[in-house]
């Protein structure tokens, strides 16, 4: 495999492209094949849910924390779920220290939208008392090793984290005007309904392929991420300086539903529901 560097030589680029033209990849996958996903859930004791997800060489550890706060005035009976991503400088020489840059904000926002628009988190279940108290969930993703396609790995990792959730259950005490704890837990069983997956495709010249690895991601003209539930497309993000034909988008839409269905079955994310009651 090629080394990580900012610039990939023209020879290496040509090698990647000529392989893709023959429908071959430098890591021997076919165009519509994922690298291997590995998921471990609830690995962080301090978090109220967590997942350690690898996709090939890419590795992301995500944790869930919660807070109780006042709901937004326009959604008085719904909790809030926010997604944050950090590209740790430990994960790649390409990542720098400092406040979140474009790439990490895009990762967080695409994963957030994939989850938000899919009827995944049941925000009404996160309400303790209308207009007074709701849960605010923080899903924080940390990239441990960057091997390309952070978005798909991040999507699986955020989803598995939410499914593995075990949040103390609160009820509203009218007299004291505050939240009290019942000693029970809210788990992924009641919090999560749809299971959105994000599928990212790279494009080089006129070739489109699933799950770009690092060298492919560094040389590709652009990418497109399509988030799907069992039967619906819930968000799309085109990024990079490539253009896609209308026919390509139609084709990727149906491909995404088909591959998403297969992947969802393989990953079986509901197995990570916390056993804590």
């Amino acid at each position, binding site marked *: 495999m090629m080394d*990580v560097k900012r610039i990939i030589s023209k020879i290496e680029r040509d090698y990647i492209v000529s392989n893709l033209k023959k429908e071959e990849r430098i890591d021997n996958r076919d165009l519509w094949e994922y690298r291997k996903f590995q998921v471990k859930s609830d690995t962080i004791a301090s978090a109220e849910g967590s997942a350690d997800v690898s996709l090939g060489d890419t590795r992301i*550890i995500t*944790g869930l924390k919660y807070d109780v706060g006042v709901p937004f005035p326009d959604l008085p009976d719904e909790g809030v779920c926010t997604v944050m991503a950090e590209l740790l400088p430990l994960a790649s*020489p390409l990542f*720098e220290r400092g406040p979140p840059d474009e790439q990490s904000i895009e990762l967080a926002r695409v994963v957030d939208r994939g989850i938000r628009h899919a009827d995944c988190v049941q925000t009404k279940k996160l309400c303790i008392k209308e207009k007074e108290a709701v849960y605010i969930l*923080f899903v924080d993703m*940390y990239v441990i090793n960057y091997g390309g396609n952070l978005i798909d790995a991040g999507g699986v990792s955020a989803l598995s984290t939410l499914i593995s959730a075990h949040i103390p259950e609160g009820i509203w005490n009218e007299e004291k005007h505050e939240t009290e704890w019942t000693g029970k837990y809210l788990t992924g069983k009641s919090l999560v309904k749809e299971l959105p997956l994000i599928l990212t495709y790279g494009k080089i010249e006129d070739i489109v392929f699933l799950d770009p690895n690092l060298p492919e991601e560094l040389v590709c003209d652009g990418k497109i991420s399509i988030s799907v539930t069992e039967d619906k497309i819930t968000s799309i993000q085109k990024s990079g300086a490539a253009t896609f034909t209308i026919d390509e988008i139609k084709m990727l839409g149906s491909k995404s539903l088909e591959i998403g269905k297969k992947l969802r079955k393989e990953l079986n994310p509901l197995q990570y529901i916390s056993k804590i009651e």
Partner: protein
Amino acid sequence: MPLIIKDEYPETLFRKDGKRLDGRDVNELRPIKMEVGVIKNADGSAYLEWGNNKIFAAVYGPREVHPHHLAKPDRGILRVFYRMATYSVFDRKRPAPGRREKEISMIISDCIEPLLFLELYPGTSFEIFIEVMDADGGTRCASTTVAALALADAGIPMKSLVSSIAVGKIDGKIVVDLSGIEDKAGNADLPIAITWYNEELSLLQFDGDMNLDELNDFLDIAKNALKDIHQIQLDALKSKYVKLQEETNKSKGKNEKKGDE
């Protein structure tokens, strides 16, 4: 807003049978697991589980200094960045690095610098990134230990490893390897690190109260515990090469078989 479930301090830190709350004896360490080479992109890396602490360390260097004005014409520089994940602690930590993280980064950097031959690398930097994914007391000691391991994994010349541990006093008794709750509710906490090439102290802080006898005891007990930790570090470094050896033997075996055919 703070969380409403409080992490209350227990009245006593010892159980009725004389053991500590997590079932350890006074001089017993928590289970420790170390592994090197866990982050493929880094020049050197290590992972450590120490009780509930889970920490990654990665080393990049020697490489160009950025920003450039920090470079020194006659020697390399060492920079350490200790950070905690937002979900590593009871109350969600703010994502931006705080004062505590900056201080600990400096302490660890000062602890490790004596081990390196920085004068051999003018104009360059070594950067160590430490990420605490799960925290339960003693993260600065665990981070120092795992950072040394990552440096060794990067193949950077070092005088020796450094090992670190916290000793302390809980309910008036001296114990090694304070857990999170013992650290918060105990009477004294003394993080300490030994650089093995000269067996001197390279990290030392203290909070609490002690008399002179106790100081002597603290140091003796710490040194004994550190020997165990040093051994675990060495074993982790060796096991990477044992694995490599096994893999090469396997592939050699395959090639020979092919040759026979």
